[in-house]
C-alpha cells in the first residue's frame, strides 16, 4: 500500500480520484473548462468560503479535473494531499513560501536544477530568505548548515544535471534530528521509480511537465504533503501552527493535522499567488500519468542500454548515470533503475559537443527533460548559463557535459542518431588535430 491507497501503483495511475458514476458515465476524466461554480444557495457559498464544506469555488483555487490529478498523485506518492500548480517552479515556490517567511533560511543541495538554484540564491533572497548550499550527501555539512532559523532541507532525489542520487533516509534523519522537514524534488525519479515519502521525505514536488506528462504538451507542477511531519513539535512553523488571520484565525495544524501544509497552500498560495494549473493541462497530464509505469520501463531500459553503448564508443570521453558503479543508497532507493537521464562528454570538449548536438536528427536539442522523445542539451550554455564558473563546478557541470533525456523510441534508432552526432564530433577532433 502507498499509505494513501490500497490499490497498486498502476491501478492508482489509471483510476484514483475519478469514478465514472458521476458526469454522465464519462469513462475519461472530463475537462471542467470553467472558471467558477454555481452555489446552491448563499448558505452553501458561505460554507465553502469558510471551509465548512469541501467543494469548488473558483478554478484558481480548485477545479474538478485538476483535483483528480492531485488526488491521483497524492495516492501514488502516498501523501495526505496534493496541490497542482501551473509549473514545477511554482510548485517549488509555493512550498518554500508556505514554510518560510522573511528572516528564515533554507539548506539546499548544491546540485539542483538551474532555475531552482536561482530561486533559492537570488529571488527568495530579495524577501530576506537565505539559502546555504551544501553537498547533500555529506551529513556533517547538512547538519552544520542548519541554523536556528532554518525551515527546510531541500534536495532533488536525482540531482539535475549531475545525476547524483540523494541519500534520502540519511538526509531525512539529519533534518528530523533538528526538527526540520525534508522537501524533495522527485522530478527525475517519477513516482514509478522512487517514492520519497517512504524514505523519510516530508514534502514531495514534481515538475509534472516531464515524465509524468511524457508528451511534452503541458507544463505543470505538484506539491504533495507527506503528512508525517509534526509541525507543532518542531516549533518552527508559525504559518502552520498559529492562527491565520485571513481565515478567521484558522490553525492549519490543529484543524487539518496531516494535511496542514496542503491546506495552507490551498488557502493562501492558490488564492494570493494564483499559479493554478489549467483544467485542460490537468487533462493532458492525466493522459500521461495513465501510462507512466509502462513508459518508465522503456525509458530506463533504453537509458541503461545507451549507457553501455556510449561507454564503448570511441568518440566518447566519459559517461555518467547513477546506475554506473551504483553506491548502496542508489541501489536501495532505485531498485528499478535510477532514471533515464544520462550525461556524457565527447572527446574534443565544448566544440565537439556542439557538433554532436547540431548533427542529431531524431533527438531534439531543447530545454526540457522527460519527454517520451529523446532530448539533448548543453546545460553550460543554456539552463545553467546564469551560474558562475565556481557554481557550475559545485553543481557538477563541466563545459563539455551533454545532458540526454533518453526517450522511448526504438533503441537502434536512438543509437543511429547518436552515431551521426558522434561522427560529427570526431570530425571536430580530427580537424583540431590537423590545425
Amino acid at each position, binding site marked *: *500500500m502507498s*499509505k*494513501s*491507497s*490500497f*490499490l497498486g501503483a498502476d491501478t*492508482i495511475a489509471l*483510476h*484514483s*480520484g*475519478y*469514478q465514472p458514476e458521476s458526469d454522465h458515465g464519462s469513462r475519461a476524466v472530463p475537462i471542467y473548462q470553467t472558471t467558477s461554480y454555481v452555489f446552491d444557495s448563499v448558505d452553501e457559498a458561505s*460554507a465553502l468560503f*469558510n*471551509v*465548512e*464544506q*469541501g*467543494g*469548488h469555488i473558483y478554478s484558481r483555487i*480548485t*477545479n*474538478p479535473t*485538476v*483535483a483528480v490529478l*492531485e*488526488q*491521483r498523485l*497524492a*495516492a501514488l506518492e*502516498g*501523501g*495526505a*494531499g*496534493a*496541490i*497542482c500548480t501551473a509549473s514545477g517552479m511554482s510548485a517549488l515556490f509555493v512550498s518554500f513560501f508556505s514554510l518560510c517567511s522573511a528572516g528564515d533560511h533554507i539548506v539546499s543541495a548544491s546540485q539542483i536544477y538551474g532555475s531552482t538554484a536561482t530561486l533559492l540564491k537570488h529571488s527568495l533572497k530579495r524577501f530576506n530568505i537565505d539559502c546555504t548550499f551544501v553537498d547533500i550527501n555529506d551529513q556533517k555539512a547538512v547538519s552544520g548548515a542548519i541554523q536556528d532559523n532554518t525551515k527546510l532541507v531541500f534536495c532533488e532525489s536525482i540531482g539535475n544535471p549531475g545525476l547524483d542520487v540523494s541519500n534520502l533516509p540519511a538526509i531525512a534523519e539529519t533534518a528530523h534530528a533538528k526538527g526540520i522537514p525534508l522537501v524533495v524534488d522527485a522530478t527525475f525519479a517519477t513516482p514509478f521509480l522512487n517514492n520519497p515519502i517512504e524514505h523519510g521525505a516530508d514534502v514531495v514536488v514534481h515538475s509534472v511537465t516531464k515524465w509524468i506528462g511524457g508528451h511534452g504538451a503541458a507544463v505543470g507542477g505538484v506539491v504533495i504533503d507527506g*503528512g*508525517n511531519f509534526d509541525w*507543532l513539535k518542531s516549533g518552527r512553523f508559525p504559518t502552520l501552527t498559529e492562527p491565520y488571520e485571513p*481565515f*478567521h*484565525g*484558522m*490553525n492549519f495544524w*490543529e*484543524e*487539518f*493535522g*496531516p*494535511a496542514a501544509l*496542503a491546506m495552507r497552500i*490551498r488557502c493562501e498560495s492558490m488564492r494570493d499567488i494564483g499559479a493554478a494549473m489549467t483544467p485542460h493541462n490537468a487533462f493532458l497530464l492525466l493522459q500521461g500519468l495513465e501510462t507512466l509505469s509502462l513508459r518508465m520501463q522503456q525509458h530506463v531500459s533504453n537509458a541503461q542500454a545507451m549507457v553501455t553503448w556510449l561507454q564503448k564508443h570511441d568518440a566518447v570521453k566519459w559517461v555518467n548515470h547513477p546506475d554506473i558503479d551504483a553506491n548502496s543508497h542508489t541501489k536501495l532507493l532505485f531498485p528499478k533503475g535510477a532514471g533515464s537521464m544520462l550525461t556524457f562528454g565527447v572527446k574534443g570538449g565544448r566544440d565537439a559537443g556542439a557538433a554532436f548536438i547540431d548533427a542529431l536528427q531524431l533527438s531534439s536539442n531543447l530545454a526540457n527533460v522527460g519527454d517520451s522523445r529523446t532530448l539533448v542539451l548543453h546545460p553550460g550554455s543554456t539552463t545553467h548559463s546564469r551560474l558562475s564558473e565556481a557554481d557550475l563546478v559545485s553543481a557538477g557541470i563541466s563545459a563539455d557535459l551533454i545532458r540526454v533525456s533518453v526517450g522511448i523510441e526504438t533503441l537502434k534508432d536512438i543509437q543511429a542518431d547518436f552515431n551521426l552526432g558522434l561522427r560529427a564530433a570526431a570530425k571536430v577532433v580530427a580537424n583540431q588535430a590537423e590545425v
Partner: protein
Amino acid sequence: MYIEVDNANTFIATGGKPFDPSLPTVVLLHGSGTDHRGWALQARWFAFHGYSVFAPDFPAHSLSGGEALTSIESMGAWLIRALDEAKVTKVHLIGHSQGFLVALEAASLLGDRLKSVMALATASAIPVNPALVEMAQTNPTAAAEMMLQWGFGNQSQYGASAVPGMQPIGIGARIMANNPLATDLSACNAYTQGAQRAQKLASTGCPSCVILAEKDRMTPKKEGLKLAQDLNTQAQVVKEMGHMLPMEAPKESLYFMKKFIQSVEK
C-alpha cells in the same frame, strides 16, 4: 483550545472560534484511534452558526496528553470532567463509532445538561475481532491499515475526496498510526451495556438521531438499525458510504447533523 483534565493537557477543537460555554454546545466524539480532525468541516460550520463546538482528542490521542482510557465507561466519565472543566451547560452529544458508545455513557451522567444525542455510523455494541485487537497491539500500523481498508467505502478506496486534492485514507493512516488503537478497540469490545443505555435514554424522551452508512463494514447497517430501535428513533442511511462517514461524506453528515440539532434547538 487546551484545557487541563485529570492533570493532563487536553486538546479540544472548537471549530476555529473561541469557545463560549454559554452557547448550546455541540460535542463531537471521535472513533477508535482517530481524533477531532474527522470532524474538521462540521466543527467549523457549527462554530460559525451560533453554537459552541467541543471536539476533544481523548487522552493520549493526537494533541492530548494523559494515559489512554481503557473502558467506554471511563471515557464517558472523563468526558463529563472535561465538560465540567469547560463549564459547558447545554450539551448535544454527537458520536461516530466508538464516540457514540462514549456518548451513551456520558448521556447517563449529564442530567438535564443533555439536550440530544446523535449517532453516526455506529451501533449499540461494537464487538472487535480478537485477531484485530491483537494485531493493534503487536503491529498497530497493519491494524490501522486493515481498518482503513474496511472502514472507508468504495469511493474513498478509489481516491475520492470531499475536499479537493486530499487523500482521506492517507490522512487517516497518519492519525491512527500515532494513537492508542489497541486500547480503544479493546474498550469497544468489552462494552456491553449500550443497548440498555440506549433504551433507558429513549425512556427519558431525550431527542436522538441515527445516521448510518449503507456500505458500513465495521458497524454494519443492520446493527445501526437495532440501535435506532433501542433509541426509539428512525435511522437515515447515506448511500454508498462506508464506516468513516464523517470523513467520507462530510457534507451529507453535516446536512443531517445541522437539521437535527436545529430541530432540537428550535
